[in-house]
């Protein structure tokens, strides 16, 4: 720690760690969004709603198991699967029949889903603020110099690379991942080599939504779980995806890194207008790289 504080003032180090933990959540959600956008060509506005449902399910699961360490871990594990199951039903029931439609039509359809899911959350969980109790081992800060850094944020920073590694493994080392990369570029030809593209799409859609649910579950102990939490996130996630290059998972990582760090460091530079910095960064990136930082699959 002394070495780090010698090269970087502790308050900046603290903000970088906060930014990196924010990046993890944004990356997990945006990577799912970009995966779906790249392979299925669906701009899924309802992705934010699935993130919100992930957080609410995490709350219910945690409560069901009596909170504490068990409740937290069960919530983090089960909530993404619950969201994945919901998305599988929606994909097989509705999206599977509409892939050939125009993007605008799909955009409007996912928007309608965002509204429906928002109301569903209101019916099931009501409009009150909820929160997931952090387990004792994650409570409290680790002091760096005189500034405390929450342990949970460090946990999130550690989780991020594992999710990235998992996605790398999926897209590069598994057959279904390779097929999904091929389908992102030429879905007709994937069908013409004997692959049932419809099921490939279903699997990718479910994985993408699983990531939204995972993001919601992981964020649930550090935010107020409430209606509307999807709105801000979906805007940020889309901006990250556009900044990184549509459909590029590594682009999402890069975009989330820029977004997370500019957000947390911006507060240090100009506290009243800290929120502006990530958006200014996005504008700057798009001015110089209109199609995003990395190669777009579109």
């Amino acid at each position, binding site marked *: 720690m002394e070495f780090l504080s010698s090269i970087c003032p502790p308050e900046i180090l603290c903000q970088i760690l906060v930014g990196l933990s924010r990046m993890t959540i944004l990356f997990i959600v945006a990577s799912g969004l970009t995966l779906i956008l790249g392979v299925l060509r669906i701009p899924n506005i309802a992705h934010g709603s699935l993130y919100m449902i992930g957080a609410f399910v995490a709350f219910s699961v945690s409560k069901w198991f009596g909170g504490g360490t068990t409740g937290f871990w069960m919530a983090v594990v089960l909530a993404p699967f619950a969201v994945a199951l919901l998305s599988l039903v929606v994909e097989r029931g509705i999206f599977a029949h509409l892939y050939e439609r125009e993007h605008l039509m799909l955009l409007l359809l996912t928007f309608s889903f965002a509204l429906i899911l928002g109301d569903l959350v209101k019916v099931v969980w009501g409009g009150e603020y909820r929160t997931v109790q952090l387990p004792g081992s994650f409570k409290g800060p680790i002091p760096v110099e005189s500034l405390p850094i929450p342990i949970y944020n460090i946990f999130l920073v550690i989780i991020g690379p594992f999710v990235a590694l998992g996605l790398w493994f999926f897209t590069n080392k598994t*057959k279904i991942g*390779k*097929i999904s*990369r*091929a389908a*992102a*570029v*030429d879905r*007709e*030809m*994937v*069908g*013409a*080599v*004997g*692959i*049932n*593209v419809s099921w490939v799409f279903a699997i990718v859609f479910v994985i993408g939504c699983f990531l939204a649910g995972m993001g919601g579950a992981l964020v649930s102990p550090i935010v107020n779980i409430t209606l509307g939490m999807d709105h801000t996130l979906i805007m940020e996630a889309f901006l990250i995806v556009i900044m990184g290059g549509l459909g590029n998972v590594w682009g999402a990582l890069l975009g989330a890194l820029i977004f997370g760090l500019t957000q947390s460091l911006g507060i240090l530079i100009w506290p009243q207008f800290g929120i502006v910095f990530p958006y200014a960064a996005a504008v700057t990136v798009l001015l110089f790289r209109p199609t995003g930082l990395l190669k777009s699959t579109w």
Partner: protein
Amino acid sequence: MLSVNGIHTFYGLSHILFDVSLTVSQGEIVGLLGRNGAGKSTTMRSIMGLTPPRQGTITFKAEPITRQKAFLLVRRGIAYVPDDRRVFADLSVDDNLEITFRRNEDWNKERVYDLFPVLGEIKSRRGGNLSGGEQQMLAVGRALMSSPELLLLDEPTEGLAPLIVRDLEKQILKLRETGISILLSEQNVKSALKLISRVYVIDNGRIRFEGSLADFEANEEIKKKYLMI
């Protein structure tokens, strides 16, 4: 083996194929010859279910396959090599072969690399970084991975250097020896005539000639009128 009976195919409102009929028997290479825009590729796409015909029927091994999805046709034993190859640019040569559906163990990567040794030497290279000839070999190899009984080869020599065309012709003849039936669409008549045993000539979406290789060779009028040779 394959029987196309009076198909009419449209792109939107444009009527492209008019009453096209053709057959391919077990183990033969049949040529579908015609100029650019004559309807060769549309015929191939219609058979493969990518641009399904609005009228007419297609049967494969006496079973109807009209308007079936492409992936189901591959599983029945039909493989397709498009004229623009369409190898998966982002995947390696090895992965291009690996992701293909395999009906049985007749063909595998090693057998494809035996047929096209060049591919074996560049198996980790990305499909998008291959030369035209290498891409063509990969497209054929990828189609063979499904162990097809019928191969739809759409203009395999298009854009290739003469030396590579000669190599490819040899491989196609080797494939015939394995018992695979081939429907070969070509503009390059000179190359096609070395491979095929029967000929269909297509022009403006209509079959204008149907006959043996000898009949075709003797028919100067057809060659001049529809193929400009």
